[in-house]
């Protein structure tokens, strides 16, 4: 199972890198979003994929899962959510201001 998830994370990274390298700003943003999903999966796998009870309440289950990676992922999701949202707004404003979402065109405003 771990191998499978790791490969999945790898595929996600591949997709994300492809998107990040494109010239379209929206694609870049999508790339960063997918990139963060990949690393969240990786954190979960690194904590070990175990079958077990919810690590919240009760003392009767035989096994408990490690709660830490889940807490980490939740925090990381919140952060990547905020960053992606900000980046979307930024991209939109840039588009409004410059009329372009192509990163090649956006290079041209250097000495203004």
């Amino acid at each position, binding site marked *: 199972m771990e191998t499978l998830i790791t490969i999945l994370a790898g595929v996600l990274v591949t997709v994300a890198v492809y998107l990040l390298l494109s010239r379209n700003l929206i694609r870049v943003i999508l790339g960063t979003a997918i990139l963060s999903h990949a690393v969240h999966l990786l954190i979960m796998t690194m904590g070990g994929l175990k079958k077990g009870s*919810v690590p*919240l*309440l009760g003392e009767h289950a035989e096994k408990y899962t490690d709660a830490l990676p889940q807490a980490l992922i939740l925090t990381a999701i*919140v952060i990547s959510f905020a960053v992606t*949202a900000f980046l*979307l*707004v930024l991209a*939109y404003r840039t588009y409004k201001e410059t009329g372009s979402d192509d990163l090649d065109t956006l290079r041209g405003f250097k000495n203004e």
Partner: protein
Amino acid sequence: MKTNDVILRTVTKIVVFIILTFGVELFLSGHNNPGGGFIGGLVLSSAFVLLYLVFDVETVHKGIPFDFKKIAAFGVLLAVGTGVGAVIFGSSFLTQTFRELHLPVFGNTELATVVLFEAGVALTVVGVVVTIILSISEDV
């Protein structure tokens, strides 16, 4: 452009309340089960976003005359406030408890301070999400 969206409007009027209820349910169940302030807040904000989509911004503002930036700030204040509250009561920062001692207002209710913390998180999420959506849609 005037579009005929009777179905959307009618459905929204009902669905918004279902979403809001579901959001609150998720928020409360987060105490012992999957759920919690962040997810609850996201669901709640989706209801507001739906309202903004279906009716225009001015109409919704008449109904919900809040500045969502301030809601977000208030949420953070609430979340940090529970942490600082613990300091005032002489325990470590962010210590949570479930006795009534901390909350004279809710005196006879069995309430955990972590609910306040989570409520802060939920309000922050609602405030931030709606602010972001509004700041994109404002000048279309």
